């Protein structure tokens, strides 16, 4: 008779690391694509075109206010019903990217709007075209304001990626739950998982404090 529960083995650590890798994969893709998409939407919202703005604001509000878990399940079921079932990684990445983009859009817009109009005008007066000014002045100057909030969004994306487990993607949290059920050694496993999540987020935090230090060094003599 085989036992119902088996204790933790070395191979389980590998299983957890594999889950952590999947968390990294989906988070990195969602943060990069979501940031690019969000920056473009934020820029569009900073152009004072009211009709376009209102449309985008309401769309963004939907993505921001409906819980991510529900968005994941709805999207995953819809594509399946529509006859194009996607592997969990893809539907998870799409939903997490759009969700991240909706959050980044507001951050990007605030960053762009924090750049003084006369600074932008001064750059244009030197002969820079609209897009040259955007790239060489507004974007880097706005980033200084937006960076701390952007970092917050990025860290939240890493944690929120755990919800993708609900549609069957075996990332770090799901991997730990599977082990939990089998071994019943939940304290040990959760401790390990906590350490792993920290290890995933730490590089981002490190990036943040290094960037802020760099900014501070040219903000104060």
């Amino acid at each position, binding site marked *: 008779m085989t036992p119902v529960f088996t204790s933790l083995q070395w191979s389980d650590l590998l299983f957890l690391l594999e889950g952590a890798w999947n968390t990294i994969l989906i988070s990195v893709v969602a943060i990069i694509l979501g940031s690019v998409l969000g920056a473009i939407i934020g820029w569009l919202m900073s152009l004072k075109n009211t009709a376009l703005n209102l449309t985008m604001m309401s769309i963004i509000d939907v993505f921001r206010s409906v819980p991510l878990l529900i968005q994941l399940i709805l999207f995953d079921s819809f594509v399946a019903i529509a006859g194009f079932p996607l592997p969990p990684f893809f539907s998870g990445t799409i939903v997490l990217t759009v969700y991240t983009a909706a959050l980044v859009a507001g951050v990007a817009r605030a960053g762009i709007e924090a750049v003084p109009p006369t600074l932008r005008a001064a750059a244009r*007066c*030197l*002969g820079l075209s609209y897009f040259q000014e955007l790239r*060489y002045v507004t974007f880097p100057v706005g980033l200084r304001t937006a960076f701390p909030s952007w970092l917050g969004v990025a860290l939240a994306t890493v944690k929120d990626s755990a919800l993708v487990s609900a549609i069957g993607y075996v990332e770090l949290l799901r991997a730990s739950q599977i082990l939990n059920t089998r071994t019943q050694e939940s304290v040990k496993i959760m401790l390990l998982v906590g350490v792993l999540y920290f290890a995933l987020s730490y590089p981002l935090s490190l990036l943040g404090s290094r960037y802020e230090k760099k900014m501070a060094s040219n903000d104060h003599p």
Partner: protein
Amino acid sequence: MIILENVHKSFGSLKVLKGVNLTVHEGEVVSLIGASGSGKSTLLYCINGLEKIDSGRVTVDGTDVHAKGTDINKLRQKLGTVFQQWNSFPHLTALENVALAPRVVSKLDKAAAREVAAAQLERVGLKDKFDHYPSQMSGGQQQRLAIARALAMKPDYMLFDEATSALDPELVTEVLDTMRMLASDGMTMIVVTHEMSFARDVSDRVAFFKQGVLAEIGPAREVMESPKDPDLQRFLSSSTR
């Protein structure tokens, strides 16, 4: 040569320019004086295309600033503009501030752009500030940086919009001295200013802006010392500097 012909401009129902005529010749320094809110800045921005005009014509060396086909980015390389706020790019060092447009707009390589930038920074007396960030510089130094940045594009004209108004009194002189140096180098300049001594001593002509038009214009000493317009007389006697 910069020519304004019957230029009109409104913001909504507020008529700011009501038929401005002005010709500025090569090598000339023209000061624009007038009450706050009278439209002096607007006039400058109509020359460099930051503001559109409702009717009339503005030409710079024969090119119509507001015509459909005009390449405004190219035209602006001829027109250096310095604002009241010094507008330094905070993320760039002094040298990078000045080198940005030569690199991006004139497409110079990095070394050539830095060379141009270094020469202009030296010209405005910022030789020892190349690697400083704007936050490490005083207002007067940042305003000279703004002048160097404009000069790096080798403009034929310089437009100054109250370049010293936002500065602490003790920093005004160094910026005015830089502007004087430019004038004596033969730069064509249109200077909006509240510095009456600058208008009188440095400019060739002074124009008094009143209710949307240039109410009085003439040789600097004449306008400043024996004004005809009664409002100009009042304006001059109430100005402290």
